[in-house]
């Protein structure tokens, strides 16, 4: 598994890079969220979820909302203060990630979206204080990630990256102690 630093000169945000794809996971994610054809196919396939959970009937409305929200999320990732403090942008994925401190699975979203709640998610592993590796992201229309194949796939990618980092000893007892001391 290889990685790319997202911002030159900054150590805190990285993304997984699959060399069989043209870009890293974060760049690909925002490409897809800015591709109307991709979004049209997605919302056509998931129209029932869109209607049931968000009461949106028009695919063009869902696409418009997605692109506006992606722009805002992109700004949050690139702009200070979030760039300098990603621990405020990312939150633990679920209850299992609240009970551990090392290599937690995390999600970022635009919490301040006006209208319906944001359905865009950026998924990452938190390596240590304010250091994250993005594994992917999704348009999440359902309550849990296990409910749909495209979100389950993202959960699998999170788990796979976490296991890879664990297997390679990125986190160990020493760093756990230093992390506690920092707090």
């Amino acid at each position, binding site marked *: *598994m*290889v*990685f*790319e*630093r*997202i*911002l*030159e000169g900054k*150590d805190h945000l*990285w*993304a997984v*890079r699959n*060399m069989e794809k043209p*870009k*890293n996971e*974060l*760049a690909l994610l*925002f*490409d897809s969220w*800015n*591709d*109307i*054809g991709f979004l*049209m196919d997605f919302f*056509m396939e998931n129209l029932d979820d869109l209607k049931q959970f968000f009461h949106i009937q*028009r*695919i*063009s409305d869902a*696409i*418009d909302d997605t*692109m506006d929200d992606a*722009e805002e999320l*992109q700004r949050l990732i*690139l702009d200070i203060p979030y760039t300098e403090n990603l621990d405020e942008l990312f939150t633990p994925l679920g209850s299992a990630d609240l009970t551990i401190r090392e290599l937690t699975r995390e999600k970022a979203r635009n919490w301040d979206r006006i209208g319906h709640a944001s359905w865009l998610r950026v998924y990452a592993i938190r*390596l*240590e204080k304010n*250091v994250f*590796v993005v594994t992917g992201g999704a348009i999440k229309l359902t309550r849990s990630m296990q409910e749909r194949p495209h979100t389950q796939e993202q959960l699998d990618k999170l788990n796979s990256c976490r296991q890879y*980092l664990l297997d*390679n000893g*990125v*986190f*160990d007892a*020493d*760093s756990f102690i230093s992390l506690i001391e920092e707090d």
Partner: protein
Amino acid sequence: MKTKAIKFLESHQSGEQSTFEADAQWRKENESWLKRSRNVALAIVDYMQDNALSRNDVAQRLNVSPQYVSKILSGKVNFSFKSIAEIEEKLGVDCFRAAAAVDVG
């Protein structure tokens, strides 16, 4: 002083530079015309949903390839007057009205 995690990431880099920031910058710099292209694409999406049409159906009506329809739907097309006229005449989608519906400023 770099931590163990940062050292690990630096020793497992792809060897290529991330495009994320440059992509974002390009979208920002081209925001004005991209918004107009996006609105035309969204008008075509409305047309497709209302008439239950696929890309192939639209391609047939425009007498173009499905790949060209995909390009139109990407939202990143700098339309020519010729292609706008064809979309308006063959699909009945008002591209100019759609493109004009942009908040300026």
